[in-house]
């Protein structure tokens, strides 16, 4: 089968294992991420794995794209260690604060800058934002069809992928023509582990970096000011509940709780 030109979009996110360390600065109402390491968004590892697998089946090239601060370079090096052929970091202060559409515009410009693509793969959603919007929006901007939350994936022939998607009521096998953008769910594959040798070798390779000046992008449509959506305010949920703490031995608290709840017999709680 003909080799594919595959682009994989990844997002560096604060390490989910340390997400309990995320705090809100009460003065600026922004997220304090200081000291929390960046990792590749978990579903994006599945996207990269899908790209590498397709490449291993029939040659081709896998290029990773990410719009992120300069600190993400190390994260992108990891994608090279996993098996990506090249990694492109789109980094510029003018990109900062962009919503999903502003982000998709930068990614679309980066993709166009680097050539033409048969297949673009994204994780279905990010661990931190979780909107699942960048994938479909990127496809619209590139003028190609898309399928989201792909849970199975197979190359059918030169120009088609056979994918399985699942909505609330049905699983569907779809034969989709390339070029195509897909976003993948965790069920699609098991991402490979990084080898130490791979990491060492990847460190010698360079991540390609572009700023806004390098890209065919309209400055009016990117970053915080170019985003159609704005965050007006942040607020915490004020619970009206006043907790009553029960204390004592396990047996004592068990008795107290069941008494408080008026539970004297097995409920018909189904």
């Amino acid at each position, binding site marked *: 089968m003909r080799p594919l030109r595959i682009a994989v979009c990844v997002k560096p996110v604060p390490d*989910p294992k340390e*997400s309990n360390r*995320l705090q*809100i600065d009460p003065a600026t109402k922004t*997220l304090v991420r200081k000291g929390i390491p960046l990792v590749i968004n978990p579903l994006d590892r599945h996207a990269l794995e899908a790209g590498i697998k397709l490449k291993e089946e029939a040659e081709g090239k896998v290029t990773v794209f990410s719009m992120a601060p300069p600190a993400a370079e190390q994260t992108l090096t990891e994608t090279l260690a996993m098996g990506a052929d090249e990694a492109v970091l789109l980094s510029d202060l003018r990109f900062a604060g962009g*919503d*999903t*559409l502003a982000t998709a515009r930068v990614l679309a410009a980066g993709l166009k800058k680097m050539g033409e693509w048969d297949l673009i793969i994204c994780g279905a959603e990010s661990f*931190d934002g*979780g*909107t*699942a*919007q960048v994938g*479909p*929006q990127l*496809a619209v901007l590139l003028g190609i*069809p*898309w399928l*989201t*939350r792909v849970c199975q994936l197979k190359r059918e022939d030169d120009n088609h992928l*056979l994918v399985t998607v699942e*909505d*609330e*009521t049905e699983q*569907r096998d*779809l034969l*989709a*023509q390339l070029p195509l953008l897909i976003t993948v769910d965790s069920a699609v594959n098991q991402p490979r582990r990084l080898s130490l040798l791979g990491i060492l070798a990847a460190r010698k390779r360079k991540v390609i970096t572009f700023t806004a000046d390098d890209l065919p992008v309209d400055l009016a*449509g990117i970053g915080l000011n170019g985003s*159609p*959506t*704005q*965050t*007006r305010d*942040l*607020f*915490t*949920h004020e*619970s009206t*509940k006043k*907790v*009553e*703490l*029960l204390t004592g*031995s*396990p*047996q004592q608290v*068990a008795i107290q*709780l*069941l008494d*408080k*709840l008026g*539970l*004297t*017999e*097995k*409920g*018909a*709680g*189904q």
Partner: protein
Amino acid sequence: MKAVWVFAEHQLGQWTSVTRELLTTARSLADELGGELIAIVCGDEVENLVSTLSNWRVNRVYLTEHKGLTYYHPLIYTEVITGLVEKFGCPEMILFGATYLGRDLAPAVAARLGTGCAADCCELKLDQDGNLLQIVPGLGGTIFATIVTPHHRPQVATVKPGMLETGEPTEIKAGATGEVPLEIVRFEAPIPKDTPAIQLREVRRKPPKEAKLEAAARVVAGGAGLGGPEGWALVEELAEALGAVVGCTRPAVDEGWAEHDLMIGQSGKTIRPELYIGIGISGDMMHMVGIKGKGTLVAINQDPKAAIFNQVDYGIVGDYRQIVPALIQELKSRA
């Protein structure tokens, strides 16, 4: 006239639950704006379903029937909706349920129209200027954010099922006062001939899902603090003794203790139980946002500073490995 559009989604010949919720809320928004409520319906042979929309005082339906709309094709559906905007003018907002289809279609429509899209809203209201306030849990689930799209129209949003506080059903019985005559406008889909094909090879109907968690009167939920599958087994045992349904937070799914179907919260189910017991759950907003209603909430957690203790009626600080077995034993002795 200002218009509020709702993408009325149907599955297996019925409106989805979130479509009903959206129509109720959208009717109030339209009334507040002094505008019209318009439903967008796509599909093949769906006209009989359309007539039921008068229950929600829908003013008009834009109905597109086409063989190519039987199954969701992202490009074709996007063409239909952007085609409607082009033909009938730009509405104030287009609202979608945050279903598989809605979360796929809404951002695409927004990108085509160059406007904003707010994902997975849990509340919608208007500010004094008539801007839509789109409330979403944000920033890692620790806080809520109000998203606005001040300079672009339409304002596009997806709304999570089960979240809107619709109160008592406001469906109006046929013939009652206040009924609005339903106008059905047929729309030919402007589907370009060169639309890339996405061919359906096979469809497998999933077993009808029982809305067990959503309907449960009692829920016992477990989270990261369980520490392992043995802890999950205790959660199940307590649920059994209580006649409750089990639920969980994301870490329990990620660790493989629990099925994804059991997740409660922003990316999972919305529950309205009479009794909720959270075990080893920190009280992250991402989870708590999925617990609605006026039920009694209980937390068992080793960490006295866990945020969940600010959000429940009864709290027990301690090791669940001792407390849960004691609860099970006490329940059995009372049975």
